[in-house]
């Protein structure tokens, strides 16, 4: 133990903040000890007063570049994670992976790329009803959650992806989703309603309207 007494860090903080090197050590220790990403705000709260974890994070991130363990950013939070190319060494730790259904995977992608998105919009994109089990499963995995209500008639709830989703797929933000820019540029993330509003899959009146068409 280098510190003589427990009051040491407190006393010190009254006079001066720890050196940058010391701060980096602290951030390193805190992040290493946590399995979950730690937010910047939390780091600020945990480190002695006067520390600037943001700066420490920058140097720390650089220090671990190319190492077996890397400092990654997840939303507003930071975590150490093993380098992706070494995954094969760790497979032993792997817990059983639940196989996601195609519906669940597509729904997840739609939420991620179109968020915030309502159920009706998901259904319009997929062309089929979204089963309750699918949404439930994605919520259980803590990959999607309810977002704000849409300010349209009926005020439907929306779905958004969680930070846990970002963490799981190694994304810093949803802006890093693969191909997002291209999809947006191609207009494929637009919510384009059917001209004239005749929408077969979720128009409630379709069955009656349809029978007339069949009669012809």
């Amino acid at each position, binding site marked *: 133990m280098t510190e003589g007494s427990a009051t040491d860090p407190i006393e010190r903080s009254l006079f001066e903040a720890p050196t940058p090197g010391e701060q980096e050590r602290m951030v390193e220790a805190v992040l290493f000890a946590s399995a979950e990403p730690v937010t910047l705000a939390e780091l600020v709260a945990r480190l002695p007063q006067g520390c600037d974890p943001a700066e420490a994070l920058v140097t720390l991130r650089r220090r671990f570049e190319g190492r077996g363990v890397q400092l990654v950013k997840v939303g507003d939070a930071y975590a150490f994670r093993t380098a992706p190319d070494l*995954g094969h060494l760790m497979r032993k730790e792997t817990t059983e992976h639940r196989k996601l259904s195609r519906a669940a995977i597509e729904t997840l992608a739609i939420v991620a790329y179109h968020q915030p998105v309502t159920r009706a919009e998901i259904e319009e994109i997929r062309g089929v009803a979204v089963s309750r089990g699918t949404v439930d499963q994605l919520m259980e995995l803590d990959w999607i959650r309810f977002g704000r209500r849409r300010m349209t008639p009926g005020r439907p709830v929306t779905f958004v992806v969680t930070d846990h989703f970002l963490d799981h797929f190694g994304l810093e933000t949803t802006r890093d989703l693969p191909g997002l820019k291209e999809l947006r540029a191609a207009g494929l993330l637009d919510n384009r309603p059917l001209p004239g509003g005749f929408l077969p899959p979720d128009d409630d009146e379709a069955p009656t309207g349809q029978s007339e068409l069949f009669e012809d």
Partner: protein
Amino acid sequence: MPDPDPWDQSDRLATSDRQAAEALIIDVDGFEGPLDLLLSLSRTQKVDLRKISVLQLAEQYLKFVSEAQELRIELAADYLVMAAWLAYLKSRLLLPPEPGEDGPSASDLAAHLAFQLERLAAMREAAARLMARDQLHRDIFPRGVPEDVTHRRDIRYDASLLDLMRAYARIRTRDDFRPFVMDRDHVYTMEQALERMRALIGYVGNWAELTSFLPEGWAVNPQRRRSATAAHFAAVLEMAKRGQVSIRQDGLFAPVQIRRIDP
């Protein structure tokens, strides 16, 4: 070999077509709705989804549906809804627009369908790319032992939004289901009343009003009073049948009175 006659030819074509259609139909369970089926059909056109011939696609779809019906395969309603819509679209695409016609043009509708297909295909691809990423606990690993250094224990109660919503749903659904369950709170059974009256009847030498026998707490709340009154009335009828009490009533709706019959 003689020239194949036209019948033979068409028959052969039909067979190969039908085989193709059957291959699709056998797979009908594999399709996630009409849009998915349309997307698969569009693949056979082997063109950019933006340049797809919606008319041709509509025909392929309608053919698929009619063949499915010939083979007596039950198609879900949304497949038929889509078929009807495509038939409508097809007729609009083939006929010149009527002058003064309102609403979106046929080409707008066709363009929208192409857009929907392209968007679905794009989302499929995006989903595949997403799942191909390195995933936590599969390719990337977090700290194996979050450290436990000090012995200070700080108990933190935690709940997620999901817990909260489930709890609320649980409470509210309980209410929904109440009418299915006999609500025993406000129900006094005849068995209970009979048991009670048997214990009390020894004290009833003179005529006494039945309502005065209602148990405490059952005389004020109208719902409970009605239940208790009915139960006690039924109980004394039973006792009268056994010759244990006499019952009388002075007039219609007058108080019911009872008296013990001494053996």
